């Protein structure tokens, strides 16, 4: 429920130790680096070209990974969990070498496939160009006899036969049509050598093009068959190479571990660039949570390094790490989507998580949908082992599902009005036969304990606004608490107390006129008297005071904003009703049941998805705008510790501080 205290860490270490210390700190995952600038220090600890080399290696592995992943027969879980591995063992068992071999061989195979592809394209082009001349009974390079010349080529589609015949008779040549397709009519022309030029001239006036073939030695059919054979050979070679990829993909896990190792090396190089150095020593500056000081010390004590922890100085941009109980920390990412609190300020995660739970449930009050959320989210966490960020995301929606169930039972919504629709349309009974759970029989309740929001929307509006009042008052209470903590109790009394007196007066005026009116008067006077206290001059103070009164409008508009709870609640309920009507329309036949199940599942799943998104967005908005607006001092930089790459695998060798490490989890946005 608070922002973790941080310590500034300064380490001075010889160049030779930089790599080892950085790697151990990265594995610990509790130190963030700050990028310092100093003109009199250099980057002498950096090896020229090392970062580029590390980047190239990582890129090399990343280039082949997708291909292997696609061909791997390994089961693909919904959420990937890192495989445990030990880097020393990975190297010694030869797995690392095997992984590198897989990478280089995969590269070769990919190159081979690309080369074969271009060869295949060549052969296919040749085959295509030969097709029109398959019926030609002479060798394609046959130039004719001593006196007769033989020409191969094509005429455009649609040339009139009479025109060809006329020219043939006039000059004296013979045209034999071999074949035709959409691009042209393919012909063999025999003419006397003396009139060859004349013939060509005449034919080209008709659009004749001489055949240009890549290969002409022999019969077209023979050439075609040869090309076909070569193409088949290439295809089978390609298949062989592709099958080889499937074999190589069996080493996918090793290649993935290798990828993580390469990325960790790359991260180390990048972190090194944040360090500054003299001729022999490098300086590392960063931040670590105070509670992690012991473990960081243990790591550094093992290295030849001088280090020092110091509390943050004035003006330092201290990174912010939130610390919350196991329930509230699942809501930290919602806070992260807005902005983190500034260092040393109030962390609203816990109080927000309570209202988030309540408002989410009220806005999406349905026991059926709530149950689906609970089962889906908690089940996914239990059986699919998602990573920390995803786990928190799921747990938050799981908790919100519990709230949906509670409010769903209170307002009698089970997949909308499904019990009623089923009762009436399938069983043919009446509404009166449903169990009556009403707490207040005067309200229209059905299966609801309180009342049915669709029958009694005004009642639900009042409930929504009541939650809004609670939420806003809580926001003001937090502001008062912050002011008191900062030693300004008078400011709390003036800024919050005066408004509360006014609100209390508005509340009591309906029960006891005199007390109510005097409270309102007290509030108004207090507001006008105190809200201009920072302004100069009498006129300024009066205008400031009246301005304070005017800000009541803001409170009113904030409150009305909570009517969205009713609107979104009704939206979910009405769509569910529509689904139920469609689902139970066919009554109590076998076909009716079949239709009911299909429509029920598809319709309600759709409604669930739409409304979870809508409810999430608008519950968040009520926190961000209406609630945080009252008190939140935001703008902190989230704490991002240096870590190793664990996209696929986690290093499970001895922890860098020789104790069970629990990596400081960093919140992760969706």
């Amino acid at each position, binding site marked *: 429920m608070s922002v973790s205290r941080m310590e500034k860490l300064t380490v001075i270490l010889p160049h030779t130790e930089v790599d080892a210390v950085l790697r151990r700190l990265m594995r610990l995952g509790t130190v963030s680096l700050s990028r310092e600038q100093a003109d009199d220090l250099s980057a002498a600890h950096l090896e020229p070209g090392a970062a580029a080399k590390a980047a190239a290696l990582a890129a090399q592995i990343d280039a082949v990974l997708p291909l292997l992943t696609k061909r791997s027969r390994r089961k693909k879980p919904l959420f990937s969990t890192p495989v445990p591995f030990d880097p020393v063992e990975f190297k010694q068992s030869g797995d690392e070498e095997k992984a590198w071999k897989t990478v280089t061989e995969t590269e070769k195979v990919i190159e081979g496939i690309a080369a074969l592809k271009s060869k295949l394209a060549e052969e296919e082009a040749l085959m295509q160009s030969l097709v029109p001349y398959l019926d030609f009974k002479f060798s394609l390079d046959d130039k004719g006899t001593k006196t007769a010349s033989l020409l191969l080529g094509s005429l455009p589609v649609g040339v009139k036969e009479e025109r060809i015949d006329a020219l043939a008779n006039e000059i004296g040549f013979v045209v034999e049509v071999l074949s035709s397709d959409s691009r042209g009519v393919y012909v063999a022309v025999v003419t006397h050598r003396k009139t060859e030029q004349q013939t060509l001239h005449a034919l080209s006036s008709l659009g004749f093009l001489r055949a240009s073939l890549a290969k002409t030695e022999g019969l077209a059919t023979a050439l075609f068959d040869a090309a076909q054979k070569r193409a088949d050979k290439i295809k089978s070679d390609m298949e062989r190479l592709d099958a080889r990829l499937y074999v190589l993909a069996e080493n996918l896990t090793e290649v993935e571990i290798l990828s993580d190792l390469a990325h960790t090396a790359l991260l180390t190089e990048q972190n090194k660039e944040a360090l500054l150095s003299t001729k022999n020593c490098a300086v590392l500056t960063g931040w670590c949570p105070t509670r992690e000081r012991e473990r960081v010390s243990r790591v550094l004590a093992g290295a030849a390094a001088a280090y020092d922890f110091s509390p943050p100085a004035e003006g330092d941009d201290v990174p912010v790490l939130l610390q919350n109980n196991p329930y509230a920390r699942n809501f930290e990412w919602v806070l992260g989507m807005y902005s983190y609190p500034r260092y040393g300020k109030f962390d609203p995660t816990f109080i927000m998580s309570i209202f988030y739970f309540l408002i989410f449930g009220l806005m999406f009050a349905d026991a059926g949908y709530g149950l689906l959320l609970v089962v889906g989210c908690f089940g996914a966490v239990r059986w699919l082992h998602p990573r920390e960020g995803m786990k928190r995301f799921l747990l938050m929606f799981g908790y919100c599902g519990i709230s949906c169930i509670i409010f769903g039972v209170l307002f009698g919504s089970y997949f909308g009005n499904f019990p009623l629709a089923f009762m009436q349309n399938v069983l043919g009974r009446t509404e009166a036969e449903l169990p009556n759970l009403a707490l207040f029989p005067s309200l229209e309740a059905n299966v609801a304990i309180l009342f049915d929001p669709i029958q009694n929307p005004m009642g639900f509006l009042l409930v929504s606004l009541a939650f809004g009042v609670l939420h806003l008052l809580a926001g003001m209470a937090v502001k008062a608490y912050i002011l008191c903590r900062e030693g300004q109790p008078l400011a709390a009394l003036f800024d919050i107390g005066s408004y509360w007196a006014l609100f209390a007066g508005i509340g009591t005026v309906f029960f006891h006129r005199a007390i109510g009116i005097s409270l309102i008067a007290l509030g108004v006077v207090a507001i006008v008297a105190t809200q201009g206290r920072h302004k100069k001059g009498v006129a300024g103070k009066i205008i400031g005071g009246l301005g304070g009164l005017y800000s009541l409008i803001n409170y009113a508009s904030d409150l009305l904003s909570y009517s969205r709870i009713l609107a979104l609640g009704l939206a979910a309920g009405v769509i569910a009703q529509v689904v139920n009507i469609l689902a139970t329309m066919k009554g109590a036949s076998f076909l009716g049941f079949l239709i009911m199940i299909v429509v029920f599942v598809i319709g309600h799943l759709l409604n669930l998805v739409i409304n979870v998104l809508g409810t999430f967005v608008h519950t968040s*908005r009520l926190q961000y705008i209406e609630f945080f607006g009252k008190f939140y001092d935001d703008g902190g930089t989230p704490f991002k510790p240096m870590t190793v790459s664990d996209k696929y695998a986690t290093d499970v060798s001895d922890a860098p501080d020789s104790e069970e490490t629990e990596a400081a989890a960093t919140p992760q946005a969706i």
Partner: protein
Amino acid sequence: MEIIASIFSGRNIALLGAALAAAFAGMGSAKGVGMVGEAASGLLTEDPSKFGKALILQALPGTQGIYGLITAFLIIFKIGILSTPVELTVAQGAYFLMASLPIAIVGYFSAVKQARVAISGVNLIAKRPDEVGKAITSSALVETYAIFALLVSLLLVLFAKV
């Protein structure tokens, strides 16, 4: 004259209201979701891994269409088209027509305006993917007014005397 009178019967005027709510709010959402989708595709050509974030932004202007649909359905329920049709006077029918106007008009315009904010949100996550929460929030601020319009339409329909 009789034909005109039968076309403009009370029930048909109420149905016109349902049609307007579904049609205009739906048109606004279709236009809005389409606009954001175009912008999102531009982003995805550069970085397909941002699909999830872009999808949320694209879905945001889609809710107005749902609000229109809900209003239309409530009117249909209320005048009993799906069960036993209720006889309405012309004035009663006109009441439903009026009740549908807030969500029909505000639904259309707010969906388009919300889409514009969502498009700038797409541009925002192109450069700073971590700020998707802010992009969603500022786009959701526009939706507030569609929700208020829905509330007015819903309450008018739910409290109709037929």
